Each structure stands twice: as structure tokens, then as C-alpha cells.
């Protein structure tokens, strides 16, 4: 419950303050969003399985965002940035789908 309220507050603050994202950060924003979705769905699934741990949630989220951004940064420097961001999105996307499927099974028992 606290988590949902905090999430809503965060979204509202983010939309209302609308900070300008510097240009160099632009390519990493979508990656960070995908990593955040992965962390949120993972947390939700853990919550439903009664194994949720806030510290694991926060550290996994931050580490995912940083590693994903670093991989894309490295790819940009090597000239394969778009391919590596595709790789990051594919891997995180598979995890998101897997977690979403587990949540669905948990909720609907099907």
C-alpha cells in the first residue's frame, strides 16, 4: 500500500516539476524506464510470493539501471550503442514478461 502511494507521489512529482533532462542523458532514459518496470514487476511478484524484501528491491533496481546504462554507454563508445540497447531491452523485456506471467498465474490461478 505504501509502495503504491509512494509510486503515485513519485509520478506526480516527476510530471509536475518536469525537470529538463540533459541531452547526454537522453538515450539512457528509456533503458532506465525498462529497468524500473522490471524492478517493479519483480517486487510485485515477490510480494505475492511473500518473499518481498525492500532492500533487495531498491538495490536490484538501482543496480539494474546503472548496469543497463553502463552497457549502453559502453556500446555508444564502441559504436554499437543501438545494438546493445536492443540487447538490454530484450533481456529486461523477457524478465518483465516472465514476472508478469507469474503474477497473472498467482492472481488468476491460471
Amino acid at each position, binding site marked *: 500500500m505504501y509502495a503504491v502511494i509512494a509510486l503515485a507521489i*513519485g509520478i506526480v512529482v516527476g510530471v509536475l516539476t518536469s525537470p529538463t533532462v540533459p541531452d547526454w542523458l537522453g538515450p539512457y532514459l528509456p533503458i532506465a524506464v525498462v529497468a524500473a518496470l522490471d524492478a517493479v514487476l519483480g517486487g510485485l511478484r515477490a510480494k505475492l510470493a511473500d518473499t518481498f524484501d525492500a532492500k533487495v528491491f531498491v538495490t536490484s533496481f538501482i543496480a539494474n539501471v546503472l548496469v543497463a546504462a553502463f552497457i549502453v554507454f559502453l556500446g555508444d563508445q564502441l559504436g554499437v550503442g543501438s545494438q546493445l540497447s536492443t540487447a538490454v531491452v530484450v533481456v529486461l523485456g523477457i524478465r518483465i514478461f516472465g514476472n508478469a506471467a507469474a503474477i497473472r498465474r498467482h492472481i488468476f490461478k491460471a
Partner: protein
Amino acid sequence: MADRRPGTDDPAAPFALLDSLTRDTLDPGYERAARRRQAGIGSSKVAGRTWLIAGTVVVGLLLGVALQNTNANSAGVDQARDALNLDVANAQDREAELAASVSGLAAQVRSAQSGAADTGPLATLNVLEEMNALVAVTGPGLRVILNDPGAATGDSAILDRDIQLLVNGLWSSGAEAIAVGGVRLRVTSAIRQAGGAILVDNRPVAWPMTIEAIGDPRNIQQKFISTAGYGRFNSFVQLYGVGFDVTAAESLSLPAAAAVDNRYIETSPSATEPLTTEPTTQPPTTPAAPTS
């Protein structure tokens, strides 16, 4: 992680990697934390709640900023595109307006000239204007209709140089005036390609393209058939299925070319004297092939 790495000594290790990717979608840390909690060495509930709230606020912030950013970006792109479209439309309107005023003024000039006597310098002026394609003309000749079925999909078989060759063939077969797609060719006209579009005298020409040439009706077609351009398009018909249709026309009417817009040259009064007398001693010739 070291305790659960399925099948590292499996010969199909890459598949094991993909397998673990699809199977272990939940972070293994959760399971381990739950086991620690069961053993009774978990963190306190208050600290956990602080972590949770801080983390979810950060996640929400990230999502909100991304949302706002995406909206702002798409709005900017839309605005830029609309503004550019508007600029293009305005420029086209202005061009049409100016072209109309040019032809109106040219008609005024011509009517004023026809009021004057039709001899001497004025006759020379008419000859020069005809040579420079500044007056609309009519006469018998050839009509060539080209069609490129691949042009709409960006896979065009006909290039600018092919049309240049064809038009040069028409000039060498004795054409006295040529219009490509309704654009009259003058001495400085160019036929060029910009992307998939053919530009004649910097004006885009749409497919199917009609090339009209006024010339001696008795032999222009025979001469044209033996030119390199005709041969090339004949083979294009067989190779690429382009449309190439040559018909003799009894009466063609070609528009005037755009007026020459000389901006830098100035004629001194003395230089006009020999120019007006010269063509009376020497009959005007057809302008040489002006394309490319």
C-alpha cells in the same frame, strides 16, 4: 549466484543461459532474503519500509520524468513538422503568385509590342525571344509518354541521365522546341534527379511524364528512332517494363519557359547595337542541346 547456476558444464551452455533467462525471471536475492528472514536475521520492519518508500518514490519519479519528457519531445517534433509544412505551403503559394504575375506582365509587354510596328529591332526581339523559349509556341511534332511503374515505390528504373539522353536525341532529330512534363526547356534548363523525383528546370515533374517536341513532321520521327536515347528506352521497355510511347502529333502547344532571371549582368548601351543587327544578317539556329 554461485549456488544456482544451472548446467555450466553442459555442452549446450548458451542454451542453458537462455533457459535461465526465461526461468529465473525473479531476482534470486528475494529468495535469499526470505531465507535469511526465516533464520531470524532480517532487517527491522521500519528500515524495510523506509527503503521501500524511498525506492518506489525514485521509480515513480523516473517514470514521471520519462512520461513528461516523451510528451514534450513528441510535441516539439510535431510543432517543427507543422511549421515546416506551413513554410513549404507558403513558399509554394508565393511562387505560384509570382509566376502568375510574371506571365501577366509578359503578356502586357507582348501586347504593347504588337501595338508597335512589326519590323526592325522588334522583329529581332521576337526572333530572340523564340530562340530563348520565352514565348508559347504551337506546331506539329512528336509526343513521347514515359511511365516508370517503380517510381512510386522508390525503385525507379528511369534516371535523370536517361531522360537527358532522350531529350538530346530529340534536339538532334531536329526538334525546335521541347517541353518535358509541361516545362518548356530553355538554353539553361537542366534535367536532374533529387531522390526519386525528376526536376526539370528545378520544377518537379510527375509520372507519367509527357515530352513534347515540335519539329519537322516529315522526318523527326525517323531521325528520333535512330538515336541512342530511343534505343535505350526501347530496351528499358523489355527489361524493366517501363512505359514508352511515341506518337506523332499534328498540333502541339508548348508553354513559355520561365523568364531568365539575370541578377548580376548589366548591358552597356553600346553593347546593344551589334546585338540587334546581328540576327538580321545571320538566320537564327536551333539552340544546341541544353540538357545536363
